[in-house]
């Protein structure tokens, strides 16, 4: 087992890096927009980790994950985000059996086995409804920032119905609601409820096993958490930094190996 390990997660929206020591303590982490060049993001992440940890990174094993995983040149190995998220969450909370990760452009539901490895999963990477992108589009239509969208939705007393599961059609529905003079808070609530319904059905395919954990950027949104918890009828466990679990899992694998 090495003394340190680095995990790099190149997602479609953000790139993340985590440096761990062999007690699985996070020494340093960094997140930034992936941008047009994954390799530039990797360089920047390595520079940031090096300067904040004051360590020489040369020789520390790197595992890459995420949508751009195969393009991280210095990585010893690339491992899918399914396995990395599973391992990452297991290192934080070994009781979790179902993980729902909602990223910028995809969402996934992973059933985690006792040993922390995935035993089943479902991915939605074909349709932007049910991903962070859906909320971004809707925030744009409502004229609020993405950070304001969740708190706005929580003010609603009677959420609007958004029946369409497609981002494009849902957008016209939202425009219709705006035209009809509906309260923006109700529309925002409807948007979150509709997205939560889509993700809940994905997770039902894998089988909802408690306790359930939510990760990914969208886990930071309080209205999404509220509606998904309501849809699934269960409490949620959310890690302190829900965007980093993929990179964290990759770093754990960098230290312990895939079969460790």
């Amino acid at each position, binding site marked *: 087992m090495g003394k340190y390990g680095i995990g790099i997660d190149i997602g479609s929206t953000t790139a993340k890096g985590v440096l761990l020591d062999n007690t699985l303590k996070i020494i340093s982490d960094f997140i930034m927009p992936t941008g047009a060049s994954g390799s530039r993001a990797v360089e920047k992440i390595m520079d940031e980790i090096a300067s904040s940890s004051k360590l020489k990174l040369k020789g520390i094993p790197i595992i890459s994950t995420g949508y751009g995983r195969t393009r991280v040149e210095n990585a010893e190995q690339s*491992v*899918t985000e399914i*396995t990395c998220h599973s391992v990452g969450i297991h290192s934080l909370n070994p009781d979790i059996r179902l993980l729902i990760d909602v990223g910028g452009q995809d969402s996934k539901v992973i059933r985690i086995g006792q040993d922390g*490895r*995935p035993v089943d*999963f479902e*991915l939605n*990477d074909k349709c932007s409804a049910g991903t962070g992108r859906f909320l971004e589009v809707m925030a744009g239509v409502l004229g609020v920032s993405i950070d304001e969208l969740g708190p706005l939705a929580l003010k609603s007393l009677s959420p609007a119905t958004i029946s369409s599961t497609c981002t494009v059609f849902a957008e016209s529905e939202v425009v219709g609601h705006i035209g009809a003079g509906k309260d923006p808070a109700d529309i925002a609530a409807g948007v979150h409820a509709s997205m939560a319904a889509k993700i809940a059905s994905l997770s039902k*395919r894998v089988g909802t096993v408690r306790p359930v954990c939510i990760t990914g950027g969208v886990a930071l949104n309080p209205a999404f958490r509220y509606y998904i918890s309501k849809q699934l009828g269960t409490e949620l466990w959310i890690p302190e930094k829900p965007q980093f679990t993929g990179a964290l899992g990759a770093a754990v694998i960098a230290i312990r190996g895939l079969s460790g």
Partner: protein
Amino acid sequence: MTETKKEEKVYRQLESNTLLQQIMFQYMLEGHQASEEKHLAWVTSGFPVEIPVAMGVGVSYPEQYGAVVGSQKVGPELCGYAEEIGYSQELCSYARSSIGSVEKPSESPMEGLPTPQALLACNNICGTVLRWYDAVSEQTGAPVFLLDTPPIDGEQPEHHKEYVRRGIDRLVDFLGRTFNATLTEKRMREVAALSSKAIHLWTSSLAACKNTPSPLNCADRFLAMAPVVSMRGTDLIIDFYQTLLDEVESRVKNSIGAIRDEKIRLLWDNIPPWHAIFRFFNGLAKRGVVFPADTYTHAWSGAIEGDDLYESVVSIYSNVYLNKGLDAKVDKMCELIEDYNLDGFLMFSVRSCKRYSLGQLISKELVTERTGVPGVIIEGDMVDSRVFNEAQIQTRIDALLEMFI
């Protein structure tokens, strides 16, 4: 170039492939000759081909042609010709390739299939075939015959057998009228015997894959099944299936696998992505993944036997895999996983083929529940490479393989 060389290293070519190419070539020539003599019918893959064969009618298979279109990587073009004249992108890509090739033969592989004088459709595989053959009938003027085989859930009831049997009688009538041909019991027995013999040899090769290492991989079987699909009932193919079985048995005896380093054994479900067949299966072979069984090539395994041959025909062609309920499919998958000692399964959800792909989400869950092995669904199409996203497929397969480490 280097890529191909590397692939040859992990994947062992079958020597019997040479013979396969020869008979497929001959089959093509015979099709052209039959067409020139105004004696050619196009048939669907689940059609009781023994009957036209016994009546001296030549046959060609548009679905097989679709596979050729896919392998030659011209699916988007040929499907496009059909789309240009108004067919939907949602229509089966075998149907689109076929309609497209009739529309523009000069721009199609082998200039399309030889012109048919009749179109024989059996809906035991899907309902699409009827509409597809109707469309080709409009294009070519050839009449369509439909053998209707209602779907079966559980045992086939008596009245159902009787109904299909009458359909067979009508078929004999239709062929008699259209081709001025007759069916004798003697000839039917000869053809049925040849068909059964080919099927016995074929299924023996399939069963040999229960061994570790598996003597055949998915792509081997998908290529080697061509004659048993299209030339059942002719003696031309017996020699090939005997040669294949000899080769398979010698591989088993000497512990030679289809791939060099077998580590993970998976089940394949559905039609293969013809446009990427070698790249896909050889790519996985490099990682030690072999597919000793699949639900598709096992579909041609019913032998016509017994005193009443027609009763046997009715039973075999009504009970094909796609004509049965989901339970039968799940049972089959579980049986293959257990018998072939498989570690997991890969289900290809084919955009074109709703009949094969519908229910896969549920089957996946049930199969894992019953066998305890993991599986994954990947999406794409067998011919139309426009709907085949490699990065998304890669992530799903990688995640499945990581479960075995």
